[in-house]
C-alpha cells in the first residue's frame, strides 16, 4: 500500500499534538476527599426507604449463596432499603475501584479487605466510621485486634463482617500411618513431618510458589522477625530475620525435597488439587477454603486442621478480617445500616453455613454451629494466639512484585539467599 506521509502533513500533526499538550497542562486533580458526614453517623430507622449501592468481590457459587443469605436477612430487617449490589472479580476489584475513585463515582458502600485499606484510604476512597461505631450496640461484640487493621490515624474505615483464620490442613490418615499422634506445632516439627511424609509419589507439603504465593512468605518473614512496623508505623524489618525465614521456607523445596517439583508455579488450584488428589500431605491456607476441602476429603478420617506452626519468635498464623466500609458520604445513614447489619453475628453465622467463612463477631464465633464443630477447634485456638498483620502502604505491591518474585527466583536457582533477602528488605524500606 503506497503511503506517503509528506513532511507538511507530519509537521501539522506534530504541531497540533504539541499545542494540545501545553493546553492540557493539568494532570487531573487528586480525587476529592469525601466530606465528613454529619455529626453522628447512626443507622437508619427500621422503616427507612432508599437504595444502597454496594460493591463486593464475592464470586463463585458458595460465596454467592452465602451472600444471598445475608442480603435476605438484611431485607427482612430493613424492608424499605433496597440493596443494589455489584460483584466484581477479586483480581479486578482494585482496578475498578481505582478508576471510580478518580472519576468521583464510587458506590455508597464497598467490601474492604484488610490488606486494601491503606490503598483505598490513600485514594480518598473511604469515609471515617468512628462516630457510627461509637453509637452502635454491636461494637462491643468485636475484638479490638480485629478492628486495628481498619484504623488509620485515629479514624475507623470499615466494620469487619468475616475473617480468615490461618491454619493448615493435613492428611490425618498419613499422619497415623507414620505413627504421629499429633500434628506438628513448631516449624521444625513441621519440616520433619513433611520430610517423613515424602516418599514415592507422595510429597509432604503443597508449597505455593505461583500466583498468591507471596503472602505465605511474608507470614514466614514476620514469624521470624516479629512485627513489620512499630506502633508509629516505622519499619522494623531485619535482614537476618528475613534471610532465616527465606532459608527455612525454601528448604522445603530446595533441601528437604518435600514439596513437588512444580512448586515454583503452583498457584491456588494446583496446591489444592495436589492435596485433594493425594499427592501432598499438608496444605497451609485458611478457614475460607474449608468447604472446598471437606467436599472431597472426609473430615476426621482423611483430613484435619491444625493451627499454624510457630517459630521461636512468633506465630506464622494470621487473622485477616474483611469488612465493609462507606465509600461515598451521600447516602451514609442507609449505608451504615447495611454495614452494621453484616457486622453482627446472625448474618455471619449464615455466611459460615454456606461458605465456612469464620465470623468476626465474638458471639458468632461462640455459636453452637461453630463451637461444636470439631474441625473448627483449630480455628478457635488460632484466633486466641493469632495476630493481625501490620498493613502498610504498598504492602500488596511489595508482596506480589518483590517478595514473590524473589522467592520464585530463589526456588529456581536464579538468585542467592543473600541477594533475595537484600532485595526484599530494600523494596520494603522504599515504602517508608
Amino acid at each position, binding site marked *: *500500500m503506497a503511503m506517503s*506521509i*509528506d513532511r*507538511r502533513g507530519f509537521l501539522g500533526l506534530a504541531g497540533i499534538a504539541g499545542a494540545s499538550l501545553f493546553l492540557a497542562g493539568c494532570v487531573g486533580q487528586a480525587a476529592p476527599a469525601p466530606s465528613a458526614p454529619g455529626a453522628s453517623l447512626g443507622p437508619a430507622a427500621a422503616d427507612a426507604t432508599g437504595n444502597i449501592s454496594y460493591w463486593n468481590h464475592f*464470586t*463463585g457459587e*458458595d460465596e454467592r449463596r452465602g451472600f444471598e443469605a445475608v442480603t435476605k436477612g438484611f431485607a427482612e430487617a430493613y424492608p424499605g432499603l433496597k440493596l443494589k449490589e455489584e460483584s466484581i*472479580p477479586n483480581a479486578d476489584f482494585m482496578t475498578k475501584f481505582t478508576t471510580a475513585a478518580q*472519576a468521583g463515582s464510587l458506590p455508597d458502600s464497598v467490601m474492604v479487605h484488610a490488606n486494601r485499606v491503606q490503598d483505598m484510604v490513600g485514594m480518598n476512597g473511604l469515609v471515617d466510621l468512628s462516630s457510627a461505631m461509637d453509637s452502635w450496640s454491636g461494637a462491643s461484640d468485636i475484638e479490638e485486634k480485629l478492628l486495628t487493621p481498619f484504623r488509620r490515624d485515629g479514624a475507623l474505615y470499615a466494620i469487619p463482617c468475616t475473617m480468615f483464620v490461618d491454619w493448615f490442613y493435613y492428611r490425618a490418615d498419613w499422619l497415623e500411618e507414620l505413627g504421629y499422634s499429633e500434628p506438628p506445632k513448631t516449624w521444625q516439627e513441621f519440616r520433619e513431618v513433611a520430610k517423613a511424609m515424602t516418599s514415592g509419589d507422595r510429597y509432604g507439603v503443597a508449597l505455593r510458589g505461583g500466583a498468591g504465593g507471596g503472602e505465605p512468605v511474608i507470614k514466614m518473614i514476620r514469624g521470624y522477625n516479629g512485627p513489620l512496623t512499630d506502633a508509629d508505623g516505622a519499619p522494623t524489618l531485619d535482614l537476618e530475620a528475613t534471610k532465616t525465614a527465606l532459608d527455612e521456607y525454601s528448604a522445603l523445596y530446595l533441601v528437604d525435597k518435600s514439596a513437588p517439583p512444580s512448586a515454583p508455579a503452583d498457584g*491456588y488450584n494446583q496446591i489444592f488439587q495436589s492435596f485433594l488428589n493425594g499427592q501432598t500431605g499438608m496444605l497451609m491456607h485458611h478457614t475460607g477454603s474449608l468447604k472446598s476441602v471437606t467436599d472431597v476429603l472426609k473430615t476426621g478420617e482423611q483430613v484435619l486442621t491444625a493451627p499454624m506452626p510457630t517459630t521461636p519468635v512468633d506465630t506464622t498464623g494470621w487473622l485477616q478480617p474483611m469488612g465493609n466500609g462507606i465509600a461515598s458520604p451521600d447516602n451514609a445513614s442507609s449505608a451504615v445500616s447495611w454495614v452494621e447489619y453484616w457486622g453482627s453475628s446472625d448474618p455471619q453465622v449464615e455466611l459460615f453455613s454456606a461458605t465456612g467463612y469464620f465470623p468476626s463477631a465474638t458471639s458468632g464465633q461462640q455459636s453452637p454451629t461453630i463451637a461444636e464443630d470439631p474441625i473448627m477447634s483449630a480455628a478457635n485456638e488460632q484466633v486466641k494466639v493469632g495476630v493481625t498483620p501490620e498493613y502498610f502502604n504498598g504492602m500488596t505491591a511489595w508482596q506480589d512484585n518483590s517478595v514473590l518474585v524473589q522467592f520464585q527466583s530463589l526456588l529456581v536457582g536464579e538468585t542467592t539467599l543473600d541477594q533475595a533477602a537484600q532485595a526484599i528488605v530494600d523494596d520494603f524500606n522504599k515504602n517508608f
Partner: protein
Amino acid sequence: MSSTTALIVTGRKHARRPAGYRRSIGVLGDIALGALMVVALFPILWFTYTSFRHESDIISNPTSFIPAGFTMENFVATWNDTGFPKLLWNSLITSGLTVIVSLTFATFAAYALSRAKFRGRGVVQITYLAVRIVPGTLLMFPLYMLIQQAGILDTHVALAITYTTFTLPAAVWFMKGFFDAIPPDLENAARVDGCTRLGAMFRIVLPLVRPGLAASGILIAIEAWNDILFALLLTSSDASRTWPVGLRLLIGEFQLPWGQLAAATVLSILPVVIAFAIAGRAMISGLTAGGLKD
C-alpha cells in the same frame, strides 16, 4: 498468460507432471491437513468433553478419557445460576451494534481514502493505525471518565462505542484494499449519467465488495464478542454485562469449577461458530472475487 494462450502455444492443456506425483502430493497434503485439524480441534473437543463430566470426576481423574458418567449439570448450573442467557443476549446486542456502526463508518472512510487523492492521506491512514497501537493501560481510565460523564455507564451503547474505536481502523485498512481492487471507471460512468458520489458508491461498488464487507464484519464481531477488559470496567450489572465477565465471575476466590467453566466456554463459542458457518462460506468463496490488491 491465460490458459487459452497456453493451449495455443503448446497444444496441450495439462501440466507435464506425471499423474502419480501429483496424487502423492495430494495425499501428503491431506494428511497434513488432517493433522492440522486435529491440533486445532483437540483442545476444544477436550474442553467440550470436560463440560459434560461431573465436577468430582474432573478433579479426581483430570486426564481420563473415560468419564465416570455424563451429565448436563454443568450446563444447567451455568445457564440458571449465572444469568448466562442474559449475558449472551447482551453480548449479541453489543456485538451487533458494534458491527453496524463500525462497519458503516469504516466503509465510508475506506471509500474516501481509496477514491480521493489528497494531501495528508498518508497521515490519516497512519492515524487510524495509531489508534490500535495505543496500549490499553493508557486508555482505560480516560475512557471510563468519558463514558461516565456522558452518563452512559453500564449500557450497550457505551461498549459499542468503545469497541467501534478499536475495530474501525482494521476494518478501514481492509476495506480500502477491497475498494482499491475495483477500478473507478464504473462509478465514473455512473456519475456521468447523473449519479451522486454516494449513490455510485451504494449502487455500484458496495455490491461488488460484499465479501469484503462480510470479512471485515466477522473481524469486528469477533473482537467485540471476546473482549473482557473493557467489559469489566464499563459494565456493572445484567443491564449490559457481556459473557466474558460472566465467565470470570464463575471463578470464586477459593473455587474454580472446571466443569462450569468449560460449559460456559462451549455455550459462548457456539454462536460464533454458527455465524461463521453461515457467513464464512460466502465470505471465503467471495473473498476470491474481491481479492486484496494494492
